[in-house]
């Protein structure tokens, strides 16, 4: 996920640079097993889609499954929509490599749902119909607010989708060795099939199936990892910090200061903050984007229109929080378990971002790379990762397609006309094909690009544009069309603009300086290593051999980096260095988004929006839904 995925991006770039994991993690002799498990998962979802397709007749069926999803079902579907490959593979990976900081990172993803539960889910259920645009248009100029709302939804979905598609290509390639382009097309076509034929009914069930598989797989692995310790947390953790592999990883991360530390101190350091996050302000800014952005994610908002009542919406968020939170607690064991059993060095060797920690742990627990059970578990986890991506992508495509078909086509282009239901469904399906095709094309075009920034950006735009607009139109009487339009434009442009001048982009000069530093230091290092190799002491020779491999890698990377930035002096934006040392723009863009809505509303006073306030406020609180949509 979709998490602010530095890990996924690292994976993307390294795999593009050096296709080391050519055949994937699975042993060649067991590829049939992997493919069989994949086929089983795909067949299950296709069967569900077949039955769902029969139920899709009206626009309400297509966009919201006719509002007939129960609170419990929706809770699982929200979890399925939200737990992307980045949170599934990425967070476990971060924990396995960086310990405490990885676990701390997972907390914001759960806390985000408190905002959704308290402020957003129920009012949206009571006011909205199919899209974010419906909520904004309720008491404002429908054409203008639908237009800006739809553009923002398309922006957020496209950023998020691109990251997912690139992640899909890279992950499937790493897991089972299928080519990047083939993986992207497979994910795209499968997702298109679900959404196109089954609409929200099929999307919901695919998300439920995926969430159940994900939780079951994680529970099985965690039981196997934790059982030897009698399910005692202190005993498990003591074994993790006492492991030489973990201690070696901490020593590597700390560098020189580690030389003065004992093995026990190094191990303990794995449970302390600061191995991954260096700048607190970045983390706080990311936290703001998560905690407020989730409530503005269009594919999450859309899920609240699928339940019949505000009570069901509430129930679904509580279930989603139980599932999502429970899952992140499991990743604590997946991550630390992988560090202890597989080892950080081994995990990073397969993928420097740690994404393979979960799959490698599954393989190890099942009996290792040469065993049938080990490879079955690996295949199962891989299939779940695949289903994860497809389910998240399906939700995103549906959200983007509904913004195009419902808000732009029906709401703006044909405003005021009575568009027949059949035509609306057709428009929704055409929009789905369009978005799906664009997603596949972008996914292939973005091969090898750094996409981590896009997920962070999706959350930042959702938090800075969508969230202030939705919140204030629901809770502030004076909020009006001018405010919404200003908030959407300012929130989106500030979030995107700040990201474009942030350290997330590649700055050729900085890259060049770093690369030259490595290359300049090479001869001296090489000389020391050669001397050690000839020393005749077995221990020193073994260390020097490892050092030589690491040096060769570093030198190759430096040369590749130099080659990549050849002839360029400035970043994509024409900058020599970042204007702002902030990786996530939330700290600035969220307050500015709110400010824009407030100032815009105060400047462009609108009597109608204020007259309508009583109705909006009464309805969002009581759920009176008579003739909900007839008035606009």
């Amino acid at each position, binding site marked *: 996920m979709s998490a602010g995925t530095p890990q996924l991006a690292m994976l993307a770039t390294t795999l593009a640079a050096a296709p080391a994991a050519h055949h994937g993690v699975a042993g060649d002799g067991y590829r049939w097993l992997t493919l069989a498990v994949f086929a089983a998962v795909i067949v299950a979802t296709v069967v569900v889609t077949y039955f769902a397709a029969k139920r899709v007749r009206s626009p309400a069926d297509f966009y919201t499954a006719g509002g007939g999803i129960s609170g419990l079902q929706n809770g699982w579907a929200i979890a399925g929509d939200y737990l992307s490959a980045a949170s599934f593979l990425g967070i476990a990976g971060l924990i396995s490599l960086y310990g*405490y*900081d990885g*676990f*701390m990172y997972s*907390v*914001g993803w*759960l*806390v985000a*749902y*408190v*905002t959704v*539960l*308290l*402020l957003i889910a129920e009012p949206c259920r009571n006011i909205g119909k199919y899209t974010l645009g419906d909520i904004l248009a309720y008491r404002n100029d429908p054409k203008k607010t639908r237009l800006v709302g739809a553009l923002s939804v398309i922006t957020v979905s496209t950023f998020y989708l691109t990251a997912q598609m690139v992640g899909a290509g890279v992950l499937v390639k790493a897991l089972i060795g299928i080519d990047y382009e083939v993986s992207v097309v497979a994910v795209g076509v499968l997702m298109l099939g679900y959404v196109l034929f089954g609409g929200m009914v099929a999307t919901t069930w695919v998300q439920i199936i995926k969430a159940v598989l994900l939780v079951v797989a994680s529970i099985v692995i965690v039981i196997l990892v934790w059982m030897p310790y009698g399910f005692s*947390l*202190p*005993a498990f*953790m*003591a074994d993790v*910090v006492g492991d030489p592999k973990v201690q070696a990883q901490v020593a590597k991360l700390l560098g020189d200061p580690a030389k003065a530390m004992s093995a026990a101190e190094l*191990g*303990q350091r794995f*449970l*302390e*903050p*600061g191995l991954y*996050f260096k700048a*607190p302000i970045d*983390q*706080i800014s990311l*936290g703001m984007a998560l*905690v407020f952005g989730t409530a503005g994610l269009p594919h999450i908002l859309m899920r609240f229109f699928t339940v019949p009542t505000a*009570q069901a919406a*509430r*129930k679904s*968020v*509580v279930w989603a*929080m*139980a599932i999502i*939170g429970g899952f*992140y*607690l499991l990743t604590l064991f997946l991550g630390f378990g992988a560090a202890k059993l597989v080892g950080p060095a081994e995990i990073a060797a397969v993928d420097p971002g740690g994404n393979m920690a979960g799959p490698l742990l599954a393989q190890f627990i099942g009996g290792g790379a040469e065993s049938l059970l080990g490879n079955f578990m690996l295949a199962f986890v891989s299939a779940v990762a695949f289903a994860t991506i497809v389910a998240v992508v399906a939700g995103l495509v549906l959200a983007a397609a509904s913004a195009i078909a419902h808000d732009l086509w029906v709401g703006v282009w044909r405003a005021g006309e009575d568009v027949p239901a059949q035509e609306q469904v057709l428009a929704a399906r055409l929009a789905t094909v369009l978005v799906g095709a664009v997603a596949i094309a972008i996914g292939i075009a973005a091969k090898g690009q750094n996409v981590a920034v896009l997920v962070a950006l999706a959350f930042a735009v959702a938090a800075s544009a969508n969230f202030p607009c939705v919140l204030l139109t629901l809770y502030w009487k004076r909020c009006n069309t001018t405010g919404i339009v200003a908030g959407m434009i300012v929130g989106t442009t500030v979030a995107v603009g700040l990201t474009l001048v942030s350290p997330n982009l590649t700055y050729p000069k900085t890259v060049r300086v770093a690369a030259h530093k490595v290359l300049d230091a090479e001869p001296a290092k090489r000389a020391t290593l050669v001397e050690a190799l000839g020393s005749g002491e077995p221990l020193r020779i073994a260390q020097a051999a490892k050092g030589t491999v690491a040096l060769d890698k570093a030198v190759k990377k430096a040369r590749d980096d130099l080659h990549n930035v050849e002839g360029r002096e400035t970043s994509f934006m024409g900058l020599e260095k970042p204007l702002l040392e902030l990786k996530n723009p939330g700290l600035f863009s969220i307050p500015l988004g709110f400010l824009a809505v407030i100032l815009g509303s105060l400047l462009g006073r609108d009597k109608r929006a204020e007259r309508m306030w*009583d*109705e909006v*406020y*009464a309805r969002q*609180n*009581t*759920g*009176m839904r*008579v*003739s*909900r949509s*007839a*008035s606009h």
Partner: protein
Amino acid sequence: MPIADSIDWTAVIADPRFQRLHRRKRAFLWGLMAFSVAYYFALPIGAAYFQDLFRTRVVGVINVGLLFALSEFVVAWGIALYYSRVANREFDALAAEIAADVTRHARPRS
């Protein structure tokens, strides 16, 4: 004409029961929200500026930082359950009562 147009929304808002619901919800929701945000940001702030406290060991190798991160889960779930309880018992009943009255009065006029 839709029934909604015959509802006097200003009168609904002015209803003392609605006002009670509104005041109770406002204090409750924003209070919980503020607490949740404050508790969440205490984690990254603590990890950055109170590292000695976070390093303090409590049970075996388990330290304050790890327990605090785990407590974030408990607090988030606690808020969700507490809110649901109050909403299920209190807010829903009041809202349903108001809605029932409004639709009963609105129907004859439309």
